[in-house]
């Protein structure tokens, strides 16, 4: 029996030589068991595994427990905890200033679907290249549990109050309006969420993910349709989602029919092993129909609903210089004396 020499184990590093610690954030001040914390963990994993340079990431958010979570991952990235429901405009501005930044926006269902729906609609319409995550618990956590606009009809609060207005399906909205990578996941589904996040990082365009993220304090009880139990029981995954990054040139065998392989803008591949035979995630009209049906049936459909890796993004339409506008030198942004003289002459 041979004995192998023991070696002190090195901490695992990613393709840019960083360890996972360098993707961590501050200690969470959210409730123990809050779905938002699980999502933060997945974001750390995805960013680490994709080898995203923390300094290139920005984390805009709105206001809410969910919107606080950027403080709990990736301390080496800039954050902007803006005002309630208006994060999209702040994120848009930041990308206008520096299109080299990678933006991951975190919002809540109240922050997005209630006060924020206006900016949400217009951001989706612009296909702004960023990841937009809704940490969706159907209530306003930070203000102690009132219903948000994603609460389902019939969902019950601890107080017994029942919601009687239809929920806004942020995924259908996003697809209809122009987002190019849209899906729903569950904070409790590590594997699916991680794969969907990685593909979102690879996507060039608006990646909108509605992640069911139970509020253990105000909306995890019997009668809630956003509780861990209810979500687990009604979760209907459309596909098995897996992701093959560009830098891992593993050759995965392709089973015709059974899987859809989407090659993303950066050469990586999003692989969807079909659970529902006929579903085609590249067909807008179909996906809208399927989501409307799911809604009638009361299923919580999860997976990638729609993806179009090739649509022009807002930044492409603006056709700005390669160097970030933010740091262009005076020589570039201030026209010459001659130009002023020319302008003056025209006004004489």
């Amino acid at each position, binding site marked *: 029996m041979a004995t192998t020499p023991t070696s002190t184990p090195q901490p695992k590093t990613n393709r840019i030589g960083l360890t996972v610690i360098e993707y961590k954030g501050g200690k969470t001040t959210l409730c123990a068991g809050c779905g938002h914390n699980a999502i933060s963990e997945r974001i750390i994993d995805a960013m680490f595994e994709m080898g995203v340079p923390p300094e290139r990431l920005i984390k805009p958010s709105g206001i809410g427990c969910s919107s606080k979570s950027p403080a709990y991952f990736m301390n080496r990235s*800039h954050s902007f905890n803006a005002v309630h429901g208006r994060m999209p405009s702040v994120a848009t*501005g930041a990308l206008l200033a520096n299109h080299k930044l990678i933006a991951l926006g975190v919002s809540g269902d109240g922050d997005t679907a209630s006060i924020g729906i206006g900016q949400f609609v217009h951001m989706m319409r612009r296909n702004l290249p960023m990841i937009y995550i809704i940490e969706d618990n159907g209530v306003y956590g930070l203000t102690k549990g009132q219903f948000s606009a994603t609460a389902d009809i019939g969902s019950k609060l601890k107080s017994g109050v029942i919601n009687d207005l239809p929920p806004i399906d942020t995924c259908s909205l996003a697809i209809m309006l122009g987002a190019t990578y849209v899906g729903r996941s569950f904070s409790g589904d590590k594997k699916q969420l991680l794969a969907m996040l990685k593909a979102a990082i690879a996507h060039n365009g608006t990646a909108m993910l509605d992640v069911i993220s139970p509020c253990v304090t105000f909306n995890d009880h019997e009668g809630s349709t956003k509780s861990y139990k209810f979500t687990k029981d009604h979760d209907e995954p459309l596909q098995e989602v897996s992701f093959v990054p560009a830098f891992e040139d593993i050759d995965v065998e392709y089973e015709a029919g059974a899987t859809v392989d989407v090659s993303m803008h950066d050469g990586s591949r999003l692989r969807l092993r079909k659970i529902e035979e006929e579903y085609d995630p590249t067909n807008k009209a179909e996906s809208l129909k399927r989501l409307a049906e799911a809604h009638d049936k009361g299923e919580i459909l999860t997976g990638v609903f729609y993806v179009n890796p090739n649509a022009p993004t807002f930044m492409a339409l603006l056709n700005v210089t390669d160097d970030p506008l933010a740091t262009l030198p005076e020589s570039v942004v201030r026209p010459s004396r001659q130009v002023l003289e020319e302008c003056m002459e025209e006004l004489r």
Partner: protein
Amino acid sequence: MATTEIGPKELASRLDRKQVVNDFSLQVATVNGSGSQSANTVLLRTIFQMGVPVSGKNLFPSNIAGLPTWYTIRASKDGYIARRKEVDFLVAMNPETAQEDVKSLNPGAAVLYDEPLNLSSLRQDLIFYSVPFDKLVAPVCPEAKLRKLVKNMVYVGVVTQLLKLDPAEMEKAIRRQFGRKVKAADLNVSAAKAGFGYAAASLTKSDPFSIERMDKTSGKIIIDGNSAGALGSMFAGVTVVTWYPITPSSSLVETLIDYMKEYRIGKDGKATFAIVQAEDELAAIGMVLGAAWAGARSMTSTSGPGISLMAEFTGLGYFVEVPAVIWDIQRVGPSTGLPTRTAQGDVLSTAFLSHGDTKHIVLFPCSVTECFTMAGEAFDLAEQFQTPVFVLSDLDLGMNNWMSEPFPYPDKPIRRGKVLSKEDLDRLGSFARYKDVDGDGIGYRTLPGTEHPAAAYFARGSGHNENAQYSERPDDYVSNMERLNRKFETARSHVPKPEMVQNGKSKVGIIAYGTSHWALVESRDQMRKEYGVETDYLRIRAFPFNRDVHEFVASHDRVYVVEQNRDAQMMALLKLDLDAAQLAKLRSVRHYNGLPIDARSVTDEIISQEGR
């Protein structure tokens, strides 16, 4: 025929007015959407080209077509360019208002009218010229549907002849107006000539008004404040512009778009700017803050209602300390008010915009030149003080044509404030975003994307300590708010200093700002000449107030604050800032009916308050 009736000649001699040269105002009354705008511009430029100081003010309705519009051109050999109440020469083209327009004239004024309106019988003490516009326009303009437009150019010709303008300059002005559209130019020239010819042949000059060449405009330009602000922003190196259309602000960004497309696109066809029409003003200011946080020179332009919608975000900018330049082209009134009238009514709402203890730097341009220069100063201040800066223009300045010296090329380099680079961080190791390192209340910031592990900080509108960490500690909150106050105090000596005219002897001081300035220039002359009242003058150019403002008030017995709003808003800011001992000196002069303030109103009010 009634015996009382008299011909224009007799009237003229009876009134026995001496000739009035280069000192009168002409008003064209028509309806909007009728294309009179270009005709009026031609008249303005013809006078301008003859070297006579001139200004034009457009009084238009808040709709698109068919409602009354008045365009007033003032020629002033003394160079007064404020609005003048009295109209000396009326061109009456609008049936709807003709009667009332004529009634409101002073005796001796002249009226040029469209024959069918048949106004001559309305008053005995005016000089009337009747012109059969339709008859004149038909032959020169075969295309019937163009006549409505071309008709206007006919009165240009008539006026040119009557007021002794140089027809060559007129033609030059017309051709300039239509630029490359040669056919249109020819058509309009012939229409104008038809008018000129008719006047020469069939009208007898019997009013005293005329224009004679001077040399007071050579080298000068004519431009509106919004275009000037656009130019200033381009030369200030603006990179991100967001906006939502609103009268009277829209043309600032629309002009900026034209200029940027022409001068800020590289050889590779790529833009060195991004201009975005946002979905509303909340989004516009949000984008500006996001862009500035990420390091861009970003701005937006709006008017009253937009300012109100920006309240929450502007407070975020103040507390997170993000630069922003916000133009407010002021219009009249609370709520929607009068969108096409002018006022200075947003002084208080911008200075203290947002809840909590919030206050902002505000600049007050009075001229097109200041629209140009302050565009740059606003950016430098916003980035140096890491805070939103408002530029308060108004409809009169922003949308009317003003004569001006050409703009000076910015002599100072762009100042981008305290931004730490990767290299700085290598040197420092770390930094505290909200620490008052230099004692001026201003911390150092980093930009997202700075490739240094210590570069990131957490920008938040909630309570934070020096290190930008979340904090609810009473001491952290207080020291942060006190630092913000220090920063604001520092700004006093960095914002544009007031303009002052002091003779050292007079007891009466006058304070004004923005477009009220031009009425004051003229009013102070009136007070001196007509009443022998000598006055000193200070024009506020920024809030917070520079020390000079305090000293000016301290060194006078009575200080009149002249402004264009109901609630004496600038006087309010002064009351909050001056030593209590000084406040009894302040007196308010307000003009807020939506028309640009005029010298006579100011003079009358001050003189009466002076008890003369």
